C-alpha cells in the first residue's frame, strides 16, 4: 500500500448486516476512539472560527468587551493602504514562488529518476533545505547572504554583475524571500519522484516505438500521469504560500522598504497582537479564508480539465 496519490478516500461505511448490539458497540467505540479529534475540533477549530466571524464585526482590544461596529472593519480595510500592500505582496509571492517551486521540483525529480548512482545522497542534499527552510535560523542566515556585501553579491561580482542592496531596495526586497521559497523544492520533488516511479515504463517504450520524442513523451505521458500529484501539491502549496509568516517577519521586519515585503499574516499579527485590534485582525483573517477558499475551489474546478485519473487504479 504505497499509493503516492493521496486520493481523498472516504471510508465507505460498509456496515455489515449484523446484530444491532454489535452495531451499537461499534458506533460507541468509533466515537470513543475519534473523541480526541472530535473534542479538539470543536474547541480549537470550530468554535474559534465562529467566534472570529463574530469578532470581525466588532471592535475589540481584549481589555474591554467587544463593541459591535457592523461593517466598519471591512470598510477600514478597503481604504487601508498598508492592507493593500500586504495583499499585493502576498499575491506576488504566491504566484511566483509556488509555480517556480513546483517546476524546479518536477524538473529535478525527472533528472533524478533515471536511477543514477548516489541517488540517495542527492536526494538528501536536495531535501535538507525543505527540512530547515522554514526556521528562524535560516531566515536570519538569508538576511546575511543577501546583505549588501554578502556572499550572493560577492558571487555576482565575480561574474561582473553589480548586485543590488537586495533588502534595502523596494524593487528587490521580495526576491530573496521568493528564492528562499523556491530553494525548498525538495519535498515536492520527493513526491514527484515517487509519482514518476509509478508510471509504467511500457508507456514510454510504446511511445518511443511510435516515434514520439522526449518533449512529446513528457507532454503525453509524464504530465498526465503525474497530474493528480501535481494537483494535490498545487493546492497544498497555494494554501501554505498565502500563510507565510516567519520568513517575512525576519527577513523584512516591518514589511521592508515601502512595505514591499509586508505579508498578509505579518500584517494580521501586527494588527491583532502588536496593536490589539482583534476585531480588525479577525476581519482580515476571514477575508484571507475567503481568498484561500476561492483559489482552492478554482483549482478544484479547473482540475477536471487537466487532472487525469487512471481508471484502473484501485479505489
Amino acid at each position, binding site marked *: *500500500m*504505497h*499509493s*503516492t496519490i*493521496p486520493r*481523498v478516500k*472516504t*471510508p465507505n*461505511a*460498509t456496515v455489515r448486516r449484523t446484530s444491532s448490539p454489535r452495531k451499537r458497540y*461499534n458506533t460507541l*467505540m*468509533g*466515537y470513543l*476512539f*475519534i473523541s*480526541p*479529534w472530535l*473534542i*479538539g475540533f470543536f*474547541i*480549537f*477549530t470550530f*468554535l*474559534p*472560527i465562529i*467566534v*472570529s466571524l463574530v*469578532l470581525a464585526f466588532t471592535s475589540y482590544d*481584549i481589555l474591554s468587551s467587544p463593541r459591535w461596529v457592523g461593517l466598519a472593519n471591512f470598510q477600514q480595510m478597503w481604504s487601508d493602504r498598508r492592507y493593500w500592500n500586504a495583499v499585493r505582496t502576498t499575491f506576488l509571492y504566491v504566484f511566483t514562488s509556488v509555480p517556480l517551486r513546483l517546476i524546479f521540483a518536477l524538473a*529535478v525529480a525527472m533528472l533524478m529518476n*533515471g536511477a*543514477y548512482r548516489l541517488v*540517495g545522497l*542527492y536526494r*538528501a542534499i*536536495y531535501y*535538507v533545505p525543505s527540512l*530547515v527552510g522554514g526556521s*528562524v*535560523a535560516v531566515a536570519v*542566515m538569508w538576511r*546575511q*547572504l543577501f546583505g549588501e556585501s554578502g*556572499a550572493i553579491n*560577492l558571487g555576482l561580482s565575480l561574474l561582473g554583475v553589480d548586485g543590488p542592496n537586495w533588502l534595502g531596495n523596494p524593487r528587490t526586497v521580495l526576491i530573496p524571500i521568493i528564492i528562499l521559497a523556491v530553494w525548498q523544492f525538495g*519535498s515536492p520533488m520527493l*513526491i514527484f519522484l515517487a509519482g514518476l516511479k509509478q508510471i509504467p515504463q511500457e508507456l514510454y517504450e510504446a511511445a518511443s516505438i511510435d516515434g514520439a520524442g522526449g518533449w512529446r513523451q513528457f507532454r503525453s505521458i509524464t504530465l498526465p500521469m503525474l497530474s493528480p500529484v501535481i494537483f494535490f501539491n498545487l493546492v497544498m502549496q497555494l*494554501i501554505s504560500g498565502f*500563510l507565510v509568516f*516567519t520568513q517575512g517577519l*525576519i527577513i523584512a521586519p516591518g514589511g521592508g522598504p515601502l512595505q514591499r515585503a509586508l505579508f498578509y499574516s505579518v500584517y*494580521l499579527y501586527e494588527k*491583532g497582537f502588536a496593536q490589539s485590534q*482583534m476585531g480588525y485582525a*479577525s476581519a482580515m*483573517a476571514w477575508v*484571507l*479564508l475567503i481568498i484561500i477558499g476561492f483559489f*482552492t475551489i478554482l483549482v478544484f474546478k479547473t482540475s477536471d480539465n487537466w487532472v487525469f485519473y487512471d481508471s484502473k487504479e484501485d479505489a
Partner: protein
Amino acid sequence: MASQAIGTRSRLERQRRLKAGAVQLVIIFLGLFMIYPLLWLIASSFKDISEIFTRAGSLIPERFTAENYAIGWAGFGGISFATFFKNSFIIAIFSTIGAVLSSAVVAYGFARIPFAGRGFWFVLMLLTMMLPTQVQIIPQYIVFNKLGWINTFYPLIVPKFFGQAFFIFMMMQFIRGLPKELDEAAEIDGCGRFGMFWRIILPLIKPALITSAIFSFYWTWEDFFGPLLYLNEPRLFPVSLALRAFSDPAAATNWGAIFAMSALSLLPAFILFLMFQKYLVQGISTTGLKG
C-alpha cells in the same frame, strides 16, 4: 552489415552514457547551490569575527575558531542558550508525545471501526488541513489568555493532545494496508477494540508512528508563530524566539555568535534526518503532504 550494426549500437551506448554523465553533472552542480547556504552558515560560525564579512563568500575559515560558540552560548539578558534549548526540547517532546498518541487512537477509529457518521467526520477532518490557522488564533488567544496560560507552555502543548489531521491521515493510510484478518482473529480471541488497538495495531504501525514523531518534532522545534504569541518572557523562549531576539537587526552586533547559535539550532534536525531518512522520505512520498 553486422559490424555496422555493432558500430551503431556502441555509438548509441556512448551517447546514452554521455547523456547520463551530463545529467549527473547538472545534478551535482545544482546540488552545490542547494547546499551552499548551509555550508556557508556552518563555515561562518567557525570564522573569526573580522573574517565573516571580509571574506563573506568563502567556505573555509582562514583561522578556525570555536569562540563564536562560547560567546553565543552565553545568550543575552543573563539567560544562556542552555535555557532556550531546554525550553525547545520540553515543548517539542511533550507536543510530539501528545500528537502521536492521540493521532494513533483517532486513526484507528477512522480506519477500522465502522460507525454511523464516519464518512462525514473524516471529510471534515481532511478539510481542517486546508484551513488557515489565522482564522483560529485570535479566539484561541483570547481563551488561553482568560485561562491564564500566557507565558506558559500549555497553549503550545495541550492542543497537540487532540490529534493532528496530517498524522491521523498518514497513520490511516498505514492501518488500511494491514490485513483485516488480524482484527477478525483478535475478535474471535475475545479481544475488545482497545485490546485490538493496543496489542495488535499499535505495534504494527510503528513506522508510521516514527515518521509522525519526527515530523511533529521538527514542526514544533522550528515553530515560531506559536511561541511568539504566547511567550514574552525571555526565560521561557524556545530557540526560535531566542534567535530572533538575538539577531534583532537593531541590536545585533556579534554575527559570529548568531551564526554559531543558528547552526546549533539546526543540529537536532540534521541528526534526526540522518537517523531516520528512510522514514521521512517514505512519509512524504506516501501522504504527499507538507510542502
